[in-house]
């Protein structure tokens, strides 16, 4: 069995004015990693490098310990769900088996039909007539039908109604019962992470702000609010600092706690707090300069 499903070292890519990386992270086999960050933070570009869709300017991506992204045998072991369908709208759902099946070593028509039935997607349906939720479910059915070891999902639940979202996550849980399976998914809906992700990677403006467990995230960050006069060091340590009236609030790393006085309240930060305030960081810096 492979040790790591995904291992990224020094990954960097520049696209116009956007600089991604250098990124370093690892998804050990058997775990679920959630990739969170505001729009434009680099999540999708990172996922594209894992799939071999874009080439990094520098750095290395290794899948299943030693395999290269973009290799046919690597892709045989990966199931992909993106935020848009990538099949022809005129095709019928059922035709996917005869069109795509021959490419895979383990395409399982029975499994494909099983997922379609479970999701209530008609086999005769034309793909273009499916709703957004049905489209995601079809993508997941396609991804799982060839028995992959790694699932990579880019914003799979965005635009889904709550019922569909739970259905989707339940299927992902079933997928994880096999210890050889791993999942990497990006999302900006942090509730998706709470009870599914083992590891979380927070990315903002092309850089990793946090990599570790959810519990660790709560330990590493804190929310501060109060009325004291902030020292320069304290003010600089607050991310997404907001001042209204005599009050201030924002996000800090826990090791900055000593910079604040006893009247300042220090609370646990939720994952949303972290993302929102990291994203606000750029704006705050503009205001103070």
């Amino acid at each position, binding site marked *: 069995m492979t040790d790591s499903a995904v291992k990224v070292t020094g990954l960097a890519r520049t696209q116009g004015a956007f600089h991604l990386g250098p990124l370093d992270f690892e998804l050990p086999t058997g775990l679920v990693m959630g990739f969170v960050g505001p729009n434009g933070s680099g999540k999708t570009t990172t996922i594209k490098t894992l799939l071999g869709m874009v*080439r990094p300017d520098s750095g290395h991506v290794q899948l299943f310990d030693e395999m290269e992204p*973009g*290799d*046919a045998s690597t*892709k045989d072991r990966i199931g992909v769900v993106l935020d848009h369908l*990538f*099949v*022809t709208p005129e095709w019928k759902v059922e035709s996917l088996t005869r*069109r*795509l099946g021959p490419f895979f070593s383990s395409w399982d028509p029975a499994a494909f039909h099983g997922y379609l039935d479970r999701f209530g997607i008609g086999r005769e349906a034309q793909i273009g007539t499916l709703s957004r939720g049905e489209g995601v479910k079809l993508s997941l059915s396609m991804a799982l039908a060839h028995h992959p070891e790694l699932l990579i999902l880019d914003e799979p639940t965005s635009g889904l109604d709550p019922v569909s979202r739970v259905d989707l996550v339940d299927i992902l849980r079933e997928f994880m019962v096999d210890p050889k399976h791993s999942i990497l998914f990006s999302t900006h809906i942090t509730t998706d992470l709470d009870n599914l992700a083992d590891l979380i990677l927070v990315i903002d403006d092309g850089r990793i702000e946090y990599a570790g467990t959810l519990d660790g995230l709560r330990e590493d960050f804190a929310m501060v609010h109060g009325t004291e006069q902030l020292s320069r060091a304290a003010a600089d340590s607050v991310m997404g600092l907001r001042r209204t009236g005599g009050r201030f609030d924002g996000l800090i790393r826990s090791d900055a706690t000593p910079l604040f006085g006893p009247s300042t309240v220090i609370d646990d930060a939720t994952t949303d707090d972290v993302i929102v305030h990291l994203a606000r960081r750029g704006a705050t810096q503009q205001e103070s300069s």
Partner: protein
Amino acid sequence: MIGTFARFDIVNFATPVRRVAPALLLVVATAVATPLPVFAIGTAAIVMSLLAANPFAADERSHLDTLYATLPINRRNVVLGRYLALVLAYLAAALIATIAAIIITLGGGHSVDVLAFAAANVAAFLVFAVSVAVQLPFFFSVGATRARPMIFIPAVVFGGGAALASQTGLLSRIDFATAISANLGIVSAAVVVIAVAALLGSIAISTVRYNRRAL
């Protein structure tokens, strides 16, 4: 893998059959309408050259390049598979044109000039091969939409070449008919070699371009 992709591609752009019917009808109509039924074979070449852009346009419309990126096939084999599919499609069209022309010829009470048919097929293959060889690297590099003007390059080249040849009287100065029929075997072989070389060179360039392309 190459064959798998070629079959996938052919199923994609050749079904439902009514999609290719107009092109085939045009080819057959040329066999019927023109004085030399052999012209139908040339029509097949020109029609297939113009249709070569269609699979790329369909890829763009339906994000199929992303699909190919997730399928267990590397980009080089996608390129090879696409070329193979186009060549097979052309051969099918040329075959239909040849059969239609033979039928019309025999139906008109004439005998079939085998040498003329062979020469027509060889020439048509050259036309098709060069057209495709010129266009496809652009499509693989930037997609059908941005490379759309490229479709007309082969037409311009051949049309311009023919116009130039007739202007300078090149065709009348060399007695092509005698020269070719005397050395049909060698000339045909040379033409096929040139056509295949053009395709192979094109494949090499397309592979490099497609490998570099960011999706």
